[in-house]
């Protein structure tokens, strides 16, 4: 505004005092803003062209949305963010922040980590890239395999963030899912013989095939109650064929296991026909491959769904460290509801409700809470 005022004053002696000085100043301010954004755009474009001519390293602070418009750069950036010299938790956070376009609070929620801790992690990771000169490149073939694992983890987290957005009103942020799937496809092109790449892509496609059925009029619909005619059959077919191709390689891994589980869900024509017994068995294998409380939670839920409610609840109650995870309470609540233990179910729904960050999820939990409270 000050600049506009100066421009107005310098123009007055020549043009005479305009009829409405206020209007003129406002118009000039707009012109100034436009000029300035043009100047900044030109400056950015110059910087961009310089950046792409010098492929070695870039300053992390220059990672702007404009830089994301080049697909190959996304991949280069991804390998940089996932460089093994960076602590793995930070790799994932950094990629989400840089390539996923997520805010720090969203990432913190996806990680079940306090926001301040995550912000620190990001700062340290960026400093490490800068100070240690971590290269900005897709690694050469001989180093590719070792670097893939963290890239896969990152892509899957982006997908999950999109599939069940931590905050906000929309249950599915399709753009993030599409982005994760796209990056998954690029990875498969880079290393097509790596079955976990295929498994990861299959897993994302199979989950994503249910996107349309997961919410109706903005309300969350559980897998059991989803309208299966709304599943994306093309995505399911591609997902299943990818899982089969991956498993034929004979080197099973966590993504292939999860994709196989998702395939069993997708193959069931109706929810009641779901092969929960096999799903529970797959979860058990998965738990052995990559022990994690969240997988143990899913295994407990699958055991419960296979008809062994008390056994499933027992497995879930044994878990520790998930007290701040809303799905832990939601899963307990669901089993307790099925067991007819309405008071305890209501209490667990209440706790889940207090932790869910997404309005769609909150509404679903409130609805259930109302049902068991009746």
């Amino acid at each position: 505004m000050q600049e506009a005022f100066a421009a107005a004053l310098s123009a007055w002696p020549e043009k005479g005092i305009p009829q409405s000085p206020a209007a003129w100043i406002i118009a000039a301010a707009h012109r100034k803003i436009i000029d300035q954004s043009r100047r900044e755009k030109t400056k950015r474009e110059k910087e961009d062209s310089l950046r792409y001519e010098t492929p070695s390293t870039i300053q992390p602070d220059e990672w702007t949305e404009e830089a994301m418009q080049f697909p190959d750069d996304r991949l280069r950036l991804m390998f940089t963010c996932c460089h093994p010299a960076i602590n793995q938790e930070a790799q994932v956070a950094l990629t989400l922040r840089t390539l996923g376009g997520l805010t720090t609070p969203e990432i913190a929620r996806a990680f079940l980590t306090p926001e301040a801790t995550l912000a620190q992690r990001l700062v340290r990771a960026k400093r490490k890239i800068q100070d240690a000169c971590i290269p900005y490149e897709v690694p050469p073939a001989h180093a590719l395999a070792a670097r893939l694992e963290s890239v896969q983890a990152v892509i899957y987290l982006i997908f999950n963030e999109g599939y069940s957005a931590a905050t906000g009103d929309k249950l599915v942020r399709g753009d993030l899912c599409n982005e994760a799937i796209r990056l998954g496809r690029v990875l498969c092109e880079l290393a097509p013989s790596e079955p976990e790449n295929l498994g990861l892509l299959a897993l994302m496609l199979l989950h994503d095939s249910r996107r349309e059925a997961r919410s109706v009029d903005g309300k969350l619909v559980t897998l059991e109650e989803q309208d299966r005619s709304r599943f994306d059959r093309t995505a399911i077919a591609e997902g299943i064929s990818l899982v089969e191709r991956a498993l034929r390689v004979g080197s099973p891994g966590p993504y292939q296991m999860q994709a196989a589980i998702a395939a069993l869900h997708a193959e069931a024509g109706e929810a009641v026909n779901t092969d929960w017994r096999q799903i529970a068995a797959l979860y058990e294998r998965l738990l052995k491959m990559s022990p994690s409380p969240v997988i143990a939670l899913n295994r407990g839920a699958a055991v419960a769904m296979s008809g062994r409610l008390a056994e499933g609840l027992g497995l879930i109650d044994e878990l520790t460290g998930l007290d701040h995870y809303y799905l832990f309470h939601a899963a307990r609540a669901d089993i307790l509801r099925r067991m007819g233990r309405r008071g305890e179910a209501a209490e667990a729904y209440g706790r889940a409700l207090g932790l869910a960050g997404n309005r769609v999820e909150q509404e679903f939990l409130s609805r259930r809470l109302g049902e068991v409270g009746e």
Partner: protein
Amino acid sequence: MRYMMLIYSKETAGGLSAEEDSRHRMAHRSVMTEATEKGVLVGAEPLDPVSSATTVRIENGKLLVTDGPFAETKEQLAGYYIIDCVDLEDAKQWAAKIPTACFGGSGCIEIRPLPGLSKK
């Protein structure tokens, strides 16, 4: 970017046998020769074992001298290289060539960038 590569080696009783010692020296020489030929070697030197270490610090204005290293660790600092590298990946390749069994047991290389005085 110059990187300092700190060699951490496990001290073992008896150290290296004569044959191992000669192989070890050859390996170091080969890295130094290659780095020199490429014009990227800034410096490299071995350290005497930690039994020779003395730690000095000022406490309450007084000079405090103690026998031994600053920290007792499983692996001991045994030597260093300073190599001018393209980036961390390049530094990693060099580090992979440097033998670490200087004190008997093999150890690891810690890579630290040298930003220079102007940057700090």
